[in-house]
């Protein structure tokens, strides 16, 4: 089972993601903004990062960009969790190094299916 970092400023969203993934046997850490996520990522090696786009302090895209500069995160999949239907945001996320995205709203099963696929 994988170590997963869930990053979202909304406690309910984070709770839902973490609860679902833990139920599937994953080890989940939570962070409520990009900066805290980076701190967590530096302290521990995650197999997958799920990140919201819009967050205070540091947004998801900046976070992905920063994560990309850490050698131990080369090849670690990063999924953006986003309601952004704006194409520029998606492209920005991809350019920053995100592997893919999951559009909110998603239900627990969609989340699990996507995570399963990304983890291979």
């Amino acid at each position: 089972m994988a170590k997963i970092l869930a990053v979202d400023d909304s406690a309910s969203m984070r709770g839902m993601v973490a609860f679902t993934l833990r139920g599937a046997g994953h080890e989940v850490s939570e962070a409520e903004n990009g900066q805290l996520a980076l701190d967590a990522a530096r302290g521990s090696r995650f197999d997958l990062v799920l990140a919201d786009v819009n967050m205070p302090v540091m947004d998801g895209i900046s976070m992905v960009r920063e994560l990309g500069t850490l050698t131990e995160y080369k090849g670690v999949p990063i999924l953006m969790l986003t309601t952004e239907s704006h194409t520029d945001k998606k492209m920005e996320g991809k350019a920053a190094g995100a592997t893919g995205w999951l559009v909110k709203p998603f239900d627990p099963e969609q989340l699990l299916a996507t995570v399963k696929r990304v983890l291979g």
Partner: protein
Amino acid sequence: MANVSLAQFHQTFFDESLEGLASMESALLSLDDGGDTELVHGIFRAAHSIKGGAATFGFPEMAAFTHEAESLLDELRDGRRAVDSAIVELLLRTVDCLRGMFDRAQAGEPLADAVSENVRQELAAAMGHGVAVAAKAEVSDQADAWVIDFRPHPTMLAGGNEPIRMIRELAELGRLEVVANCDALPELAKLDPSQCYLSWRITLHAPVKRSAITGVFDWVEDECDLKVEPLLAVAPATAAVPTAVRAANETPAAPRAVREATANSETSSVRVGIDKIDSLIDLVGELVITQSMLDPFRDDFDMSRLEHLRQGLAQLARHTRALQESVMGIRMLPIGSVFSRFPRLVRDLSNKLGKQVKLDLVGEQTELDKTVLEKIGDPLVHLVRNAIDHGLESPDRRRAAGKGDTGTLRLEAFHRGGSIVVEVSDDGAGLNRQAIINKAIQRGLIASGDNLGDDAVAELIFQPGFSTAAATTDLSGRGVGMDVVRRNVVDLGGTVAIRSTEGKGTVFTITLPLTLAIIDGLTAAVGEERYIVPLVSIVESIQLRGDAIRSVAGGGELFRFRDGYLPVIRLHEVFGIAGARTTIDEGLIVVVEGEGSRVGLFIDELIGQQQAVVKSLEANFRRVNGISGATILSDGSVALIVDVLGLVRMQGRKKAA
């Protein structure tokens, strides 16, 4: 894993969203005063989170509503539209609508109503989308239906991109016919599950722009081959795809109804700071240590170890008290959450009345019991409204009175002794003594010859049915019942006092208990019975000589107290206690005050002061006049808590009869 119930996250979602709305509101108000773009970002983020949560947790109407607001905020954020007061106004009303939706969501009622629908339309109109934008769309980019040929590269799945998501996104645009092409599918033995072998031909029946479709595939544009063409230009697709295994009509997904209409949606929660929890855990740890220290004495004790036992018991007492305070603290929340609604209220009201008002909020960190906090809002709103409506003057009048144009309204909370004090003060006109007296005479509350002190005059405005509007200013509008304010506060175990100086302003002082669960009281003996008299209502206790009592017609007794006479209430008579002292000079008179009236309670003697944990008599027995509850004394016996207000009212009825 399939049955993750989303309902369990509803309360968290409600709590965080209401916090989000509060910060949206205060940011909007700051924006109104000329704020910066960071504020707009914050407002956008809050709306965005609510929208995302609403969609995820099964509130589609709320998501749709918030979406309109978010779009408008997006334009503000990008600077495509300037912030003006009309937009701030509209967004403030949006916040109100969302609050209403959350209330209804918690009650399990339908979310949208006529008001929210109007606001939603206003938001849409403000965006100017709909007809105007559609008309501008280029013809070549527009068709009634589209055929989409979507061929993912085999590696697309490995990048975390699931074709079904894109197909679902398309389904939100309109009706879909989806045909999968399985030609490239290898036999099972050679199949690599991480590769994508399928491709799709999708017909979308929706009059949308080409960019709306390509937008769905933006993320994967370099990981697939995509052709998007208007429907008329291509031949019917069915014949061209011989091995079609699936043809489906995908319609926009029906909103998932995960919301459980639970009867106990009233169950409220408290968000507790982690430091409070930590301190509780520390204290429980200390208590366990103390207990283990005392434990050996149970089986093995001799007088030589008395000092150790004493130390242990003292420590136990200290920790128990600390634990009690700490547990009470969990219910304590800062009053700031109540104060935060006032900037909006003051702004709206002063604009409407053409007054200039500066609002000062002081002591927002002062903590109050959650129950008290929830119930103190309405009385405060009454007082603030009154202050703006009747207390503070218009700029003209202020100038005439030699004051600045802008009046000051101040809300302040602080601790005083074991109580919380909340003051609402203004530097307005103050109470008009003569007008109040005239009104009171007209209402038959006092006789024209009565000579009342300032305090007594101020008390008159708390009388039921007393219209403050006519008494304090000539502004139109009905005076809101100050009697209601007082009753609400008294129900919380508090008091309201007023201090007013004509021409200088008025101060309302609300004194509230720290908690409703414990009261400070004096233990009084009446015969063999023990009663607790709440300390807040005690004025003083006196011993009287028998000849200080005057009997009056109808069997009442009066005694002289300061500059007037007070009635005596003999508790042993009220509660029918045998064996109590009946001669005045053998007992004690405790002067108590309730609703501004004072009476003397005649008891045998006072035993001491103590904290009483209030137990409901109603819940365990039934309601008893003159008693507000019960408590258990240290010797295990039960003492009843005297309802001072009830006794005062009983006395009033007796007088009237």
